[in-house]
């Protein structure tokens, strides 16, 4: 049932992420809507993390030695679904049943139904806390597996993110890698004008983390960040990834309105053209 052969076919990281963007758009189309833009800001990072760094496959997913990825900003799950399908956790055809009664994929990730999903997130400020517990648990087990967790910038307005950041710094969870999806937009507007996060790097540094700022769409920068964690001995690491919400479809980029909106008609045609979808969106998924 699980197809484990696809993963080795990954082309260049950029082309790989682009292929996943096509799947995400098709999935959203079949499901009648999704958080596309919040998925596009993190897909370049996830593509590299899953294909080059994360020790997680359909065969070791039940082993305690697996690396964990926890998507704290659960609404970005379209990116997670596309990548899990591509890596053989479930058939790609499942993406077609997104948000439908005959499918397993809902609007937020559910660890009770979806292979490869570590934590059921969606309510913001939860996954990052859970991930802190996983990292601490693994440390107490003297298990060398690592924990990666993507947190949204708007999500950092939740107090629990700071409870966990304070604790992870104090516990010196070197096996914990946070990734800030710093796309500067949240549900109703700009993060900075609502309740800003600036200066993000200094915040985590002062909480006892090793921090690096990168361009979250630059393949080399993403790769070298993952290669070099932990940034400081005995500290958790935070990759502050400057990203663009909706990255990959020009008219979505940096526009609040596309937080949860499905392109239709001419917009869909343009989106398909920009992502290199030949023919109809209907034909993208098997």
């Amino acid at each position, binding site marked *: 049932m699980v197809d484990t052969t696809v993963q080795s076919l990954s082309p260049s990281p950029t082309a790989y992420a682009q292929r996943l963007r096509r799947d995400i758009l098709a999935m959203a189309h079949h499901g009648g809507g999704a958080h596309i833009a919040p998925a596009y800001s993190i897909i370049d990072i996830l593509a590299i993390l899953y294909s080059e760094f994360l020790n997680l496959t359909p065969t070791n997913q039940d082993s*305690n030695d697996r690396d964990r990825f926890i998507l704290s900003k659960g609404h970005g799950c379209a990116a997670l679904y596309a990548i899990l399908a591509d890596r053989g956790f479930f058939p790609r055809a499942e993406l077609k049943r997104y948000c439908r009664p005959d499918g397993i994929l809902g609007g937020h990730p559910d*660890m*009770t139904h979806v292979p490869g999903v*570590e*934590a*059921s*997130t*969606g*309510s913001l*400020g*939860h996954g990052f*806390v*859970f*991930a*802190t*517990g*996983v*990292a*601490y*648990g*693994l440390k*107490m*087990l003297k*298990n060398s597996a690592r924990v990666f967790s993507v947190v949204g910038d708007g999500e950092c307005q939740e*107090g*629990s993110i700071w*409870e*966990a950041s*304070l*604790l992870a710094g*104090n516990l010196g969870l070197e096996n914990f890698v946070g990734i800030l999806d710093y796309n500067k937009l949240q549900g109703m507007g700009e993060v900075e004008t609502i309740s800003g996060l600036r200066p993000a790097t200094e915040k985590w540094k002062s909480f006892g983390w090793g921090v690096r700022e990168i361009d979250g769409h630059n393949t080399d920068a993403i790769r070298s960040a993952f290669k070099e964690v932990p940034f400081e001995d005995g500290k958790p690491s935070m990759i502050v990834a400057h990203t663009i919400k909706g990255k990959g479809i020009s008219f979505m980029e940096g526009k609040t309105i596309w937080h949860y909106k499905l392109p239709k008609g001419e917009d869909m045609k343009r989106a398909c053209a920009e992502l290199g979808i030949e023919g109809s969106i209907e034909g993208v998924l098997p």
Partner: protein
Amino acid sequence: MRNEFVKELSLLAQEDPRVFAVLADNGLQVFDDYQGKFANQFLNLGIAEANLVGVSAGMASCGFIPFAYTILPFLTMRAYEFIRDDVCYQNQNVKLAAIGAGFTYSTLGPTHHGTEDIGLVRALPNLTIFSPADPMETRKVTRAAYEIDGPVYLRIGKGKDPVVYEADYDFVVGKGVVLSEGSHLTIVSTGSMVSECKHAVALLASEGISAQLVNFHTLKPFDADLLVKCAKKTGVILVAEDHATQGGLGGLVAETLMHHRAGNVAFHNIGLRDKFAEGYGSVMEMRKLNGLDALSVAMAAKNLLRSAK
């Protein structure tokens, strides 16, 4: 009760290295001995209840059996959504030890009282709920919580809780305990209020009223069979609890009777009727101030019997 909880937890920690005490900075002295013996199975993560529950859930996903411990309202109410999403929804093997059921933190005011929690946690799927009546029963539910593979809520009193059971008895998860047989009415209770009801039964007996007393140490799953049997036997049910009258044991009893077509009884429940607990003092004094001491329970029983005639 909390001392007995920690004693049993120490035994469990000794037996099983997966058992882990996770605290949010409440447990000074109470946990000294545990911490000394099981330093590698102990974490005080600070005054951060979302962390307490979320981190425990993450640890459970690695195979630990965390007992997340703090004062009831901070655990159950401040971190409720973490209990819901991270523990119950994900069915993680976390035990939630809520200390200070009712107003056992009697002098610290309503911010430290646990008087609405049953209504909150009863609504959660996958969760087993224990509410022990005395120190011995606390040890039994603590062990039972460990043995259950899944989320468990422990509604535990604070300290100096009177003994309800004079002798050991067979504890069965989900089965209520008839503490005294009676024919005129059934008094239903849970937690440390059971001891107060025991005194009420004695007061009633001195006036020739025969009250059956039932302790429900497990609120979920609930022993509907026993309740229905008592309803059919006595036809009069009085619930007494150190909890809001909405959503607590009274509500649970009433809806259970209706579901089982056993609603044709005289029913009343006493507790905090749409108010926070009033006053300061010992637990006994608080019960008196809030109409939940033995005399008040006996009075409510007599009023109910009178109206039932």
